[in-house]
């Protein structure tokens, strides 16, 4: 229906950028953007005309902290049925991954949708079912709808949802990554709209473009950023108008406000970022795994959690190093034997780099 792969148009955008002889560094925060960039060789094409685009903390599975994984481990050992999206279950924790706990007799199940986890709870009335709710603003509404729909009493959510604009703010405030502009994530923006990004452009004078996921969307997004920089502008522009309205999905926002409260949370690779995560509103405490299993999870408060030795996922997520700059990349760390989450998730930049570039010079 929407074909945005026109080679002629793509070529003219690239030539226009090349003619300007610029050197800019952009960041996007979405694994799907990274996939499009790598799959179509746009990263090489753009680098050739002075544009570097790296992936920041745009992989929900990757930014989930070791502590959150350990919370699920504890619940798995206590006999709960553990459910989450496939990539999440494969991220190495302190000793093993949730997926591997199956070999120790734990009940761990991959689901496509949170509704599958509710169905598991309905078919296992005598057991507690915990859904590890990861994902950005794109995914959080599905958790909210499900909790509003009166799930069974034996269904619980371990809320790990995180919010993109506060993370972009944290990156700019930390100031250790040199950035000329952001390509904002299309499907996060489908939910939140354009407005939540605007204060960042005003405060840090950084241009942003919300872009879709076809090759032309990204090239056009880059062109719009370049134009803004050339003209000295710093605004939020929307390239993905076929799916993103200025106000976003108001229905989804209303239900998010009803079910969640924003809280300060850590992200992997980052210190605590103010108001960058969601926890369930107290009206939903009966389904909040952290409230209902507080006694079981409490011992984790006394523990400290470290990244796997040698893993540079934290720096990759902050845009400080590329996947290939990690000494473990492609050697000790591969998709079949990952050390860090960025190699596990199909949205992680190491995994994407490995899939598309491992055999290319």
């Amino acid at each position, binding site marked *: *229906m929407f074909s*945005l792969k026109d080679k002629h148009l793509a070529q003219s955008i690239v030539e226009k950028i090349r003619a300007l002889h610029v050197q800019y560094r952009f960041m996007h925060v979405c694994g799907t953007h990274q996939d499009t960039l790598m799959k179509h060789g746009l990263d090489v094409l753009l680098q050739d005309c002075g544009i570097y685009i790296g992936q920041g903390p745009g*992989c929900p599975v990757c930014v989930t902290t070791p502590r959150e994984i350990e919370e699920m481990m504890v619940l798995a050992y206590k006999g709960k049925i553990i459910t989450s999206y496939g990539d999440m279950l494969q991220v190495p924790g302190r000793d093993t991954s949730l997926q591997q706990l199956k070999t120790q007799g734990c009940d761990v199940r991959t689901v496509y949708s*949170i509704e599958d986890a509710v169905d598991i709870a309905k078919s296992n009335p005598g057991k507690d079912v915990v859904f590890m709710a990861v994902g950005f603003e794109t995914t959080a509404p599905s958790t909210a*709808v499900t909790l509003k729909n009166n799930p069974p009493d034996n269904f619980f959510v371990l809320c790990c949802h995180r919010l993109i604009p506060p993370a972009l703010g944290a990156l700019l405030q930390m100031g250790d990554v040199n950035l000329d502009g952001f390509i904002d994530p299309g*499907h996060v923006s489908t939910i939140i709209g354009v407005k939540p990004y605007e204060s960042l452009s005003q405060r840090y004078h950084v241009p942003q473009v919300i872009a879709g996921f076809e090759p032309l969307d990204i090239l056009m997004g880059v062109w719009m950023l370049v134009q803004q920089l050339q003209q000295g502008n710093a605004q939020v522009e929307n390239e993905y*108008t*076929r*799916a993103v309205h200025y106000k976003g999905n108001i229905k*989804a926002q209303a239900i998010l406000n009803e079910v969640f409260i924003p809280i300060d949370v850590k992200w992997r690779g980052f210190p605590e970022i103010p108001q960058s995560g969601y926890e369930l509103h107290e009206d939903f405490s009966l389904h909040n795994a952290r409230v209902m299993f507080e006694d079981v999870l409490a011992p984790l408060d006394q523990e400290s959690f470290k990244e796997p030795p040698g893993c540079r996922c934290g720096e990759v997520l902050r845009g400080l190093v590329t996947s290939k700059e990690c000494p473990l990349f492609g050697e000790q760390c591969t998709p079949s034997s990952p050390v860090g989450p960025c190699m596990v998730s199909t949205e992680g930049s190491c995994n994407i780099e490995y899939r598309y570039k491992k055999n290319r010079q």
Partner: protein
Amino acid sequence: MCLAIPGKIISIDKKTAHAVIDYGEGTQRTANISLVSVKKGDYVLVHAGFAIEVLNEEEAKETLALFQEMLSSEQES
């Protein structure tokens, strides 16, 4: 994770707020439509089993036209 696939609404079950979505090439699945206001025949973006937005075909065509226009006007200037 934020991958969302476009598909066409084939039928709607209002009672359960679910719709059958056709993704092309013979693939059909149900999705929850609580987050959108839709009718049969609409194209939606589906993420993790939930339709998150209605796709605007007119906007899609306009985007392409706008690209062409922007690039050609740049060339003239």
